[in-house]
């Protein structure tokens, strides 16, 4: 259950990029999470809501794009999505592959509500 500390890191990143007076304008925070990233997105969403409730970020929510686990084969050069729990190339069965996606855990962008911009 490291989703709580991941949620805290997301809040820290928001606070770094959005001035304190604009935090109440934050609506959607878009994230990319790889299926191999070891993060349970429901838990992350729950933790994010729990720690932002009754703060300036209470109207913010996470929009998570799931990135599939994929490898590129070092033998045949093709890309594939191996069976979960293996890195075996689906085309030629080789084990020598490079992970090309699925480890992502990043904040992509933050969307602010402009209708409140004038008021502040």
């Amino acid at each position, binding site marked *: *259950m490291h989703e709580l500390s991941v949620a805290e890191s997301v809040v820290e990143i928001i606070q770094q990029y959005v001035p304190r007076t604009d935090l109440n304008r934050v609506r959607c925070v878009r994230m990319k999470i790889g299926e191999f*990233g070891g993060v349970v997105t429901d838990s992350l969403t729950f933790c994010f809501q729990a720690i932002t409730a009754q703060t300036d970020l209470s109207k913010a929510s996470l929009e998570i794009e799931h990135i599939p686990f994929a490898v590129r084969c070092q033998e045949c050069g093709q890309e594939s999505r191996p069976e979960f*729990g*293996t*890195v075996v190339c689906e085309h030629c069965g080789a084990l020598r592959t490079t992970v090309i996606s699925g480890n992502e*855990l990043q904040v992509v962008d933050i969307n602010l*509500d402009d209708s409140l*911009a004038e008021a502040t």
Partner: protein
Amino acid sequence: MSVVTIQRKVLEKNDEVASVNRRYFAERKMFVINMVSSPGSGKTSILECTLEHLKSGLNIAVIEGDVQTDLDAQRVAKFGVPVAQIVTNGGCHLEAKLVNDALSSLQLSGTQLLVIENVGNLVCPANYDLGEAMKVVVASTTEGDDKPLKYPGMFHKASVLLVNKIDLVPYVNCSPDRLKKNALQINPTLKIFETSCTTKQGIPEWCDWLKSEVVKQLRA
């Protein structure tokens, strides 16, 4: 809606502190391993066997991570090596900052090998770089041979697999060959040792290999 574009790794701050730790270790030519496993696989017992085997030939220090108690630090302290206990108070993994804080409480002059024993958990510690040279994952035969399939992330990120409690194979439903095959399917470059802390099988081989890695670091 206006958009603030960020494109930042969420755990970037942890990675930055891990880099600071890594520089600290490199400057002192210290070889650092991060031991990870599920609870009860025998990390601390392997550490005790390793200390017994290597402490006369190497300067070793230990950082223990646990959710509660300093019981593991007490076990390690009996070997007369510097040890710091991190109590996470519920936290399920060690972070680079916790290790960085622990470094200042340890007497590390001349330390050649630092062993960080992570909190027992096969999921969360995989995501947190501590600045170590490598992760050593312990999977015991009593846990079954399907652990690498269920927790591929950890086995993918580790450099070494210790198949522990190998002496119990006759009594448990676990095929060490299947366990190793499953692990190699997610990480073909894993270095694997079969160990038992009761019979000491595999302990000399593991320790000799570890020592050779420490010597490589000293000569680097």
